[in-house]
């Protein structure tokens, strides 16, 4: 356990803990934004970590980059976009889980 942690893991943990502390002082919607930004960051390093990223996740990553800043001045649009993103991801998760158990 004494070997140095993978810096990418440390980076992600530092980000999450920083968000956890900051979320105590920010409006709720920022917590949502930090989480979706975290999703983008883990997708950014997934390839380096040897985790496969498929078209669905690539599309999700692009969508996050394109839409996330709606949080600032279009809360309804942000909410609708998150609903759509969530629906797409859950649909894919369901499809994959059902395929695994078939």
């Amino acid at each position: 356990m004494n070997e140095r942690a993978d810096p990418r893991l440390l980076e992600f943990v530092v980000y999450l803990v920083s968000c956890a502390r900051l979320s105590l002082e920010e409006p709720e919607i920022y917590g949502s934004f930090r989480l979706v930004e975290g999703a983008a960051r883990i997708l950014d390093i997934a390839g380096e970590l040897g985790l496969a990223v498929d078209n669905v996740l690539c599309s999700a990553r692009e969508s996050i980059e394109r839409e996330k800043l709606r949080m600032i001045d279009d809360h309804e649009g942000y909410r609708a976009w998150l609903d759509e993103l969530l629906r797409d991801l859950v649909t894919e998760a369901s499809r994959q889980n059902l395929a695994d158990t078939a």
Partner: protein
Amino acid sequence: MATENELTAPRSLDAFEAMRRRRMHRVFTDDPVDREELDRLVYAAGRAQAVRSDIRHLVVVDDIRVVRTIRQSCPGFISNAPALIAICSDLERAEALVGHRGVVVVARLDAGAAAGYIALAAVSLSLGVCTVTSWTEVAVQAVLGLPPHIRPEVLVAVGHPVPNPPRAMRRFEPIVHENRFARAWVAP
């Protein structure tokens, strides 16, 4: 730091035009920001209002390792900027010279003005900046090695914007009143 003549003579841009073009950038090229360019931004920050001397401190960061750590630990730093300027205040000196209000109000106002000047100077230099305020003091102090009496006020991410940046956020217009609150100002 460059001399005043060096900084003011060669580049001139109408102040209102700079204000019109000012925006926040969050997508930058991989090109580093030259020290000369950073020094011009330092000059701009130094020209902004300051209630007394030696309260404002600027930490200019262009070591990509430090920028990376800031990006990791400051959730609001969501750009890929290769440099940043941390605008900080000496709270002991602010307290001694201006009192409690100097600490809780004036130092922050002055830091905001410095960030604004940096943003306008960036337009003139064809640089892009993003004012970052979503972070915790403890994180920035740890990364930059700030002593306890130096309070980080605002981070300004700096870089070269990509040629076709994403659209800017819409402008937030102030609500303007005439003479007293609630009577709308009518532009002449």
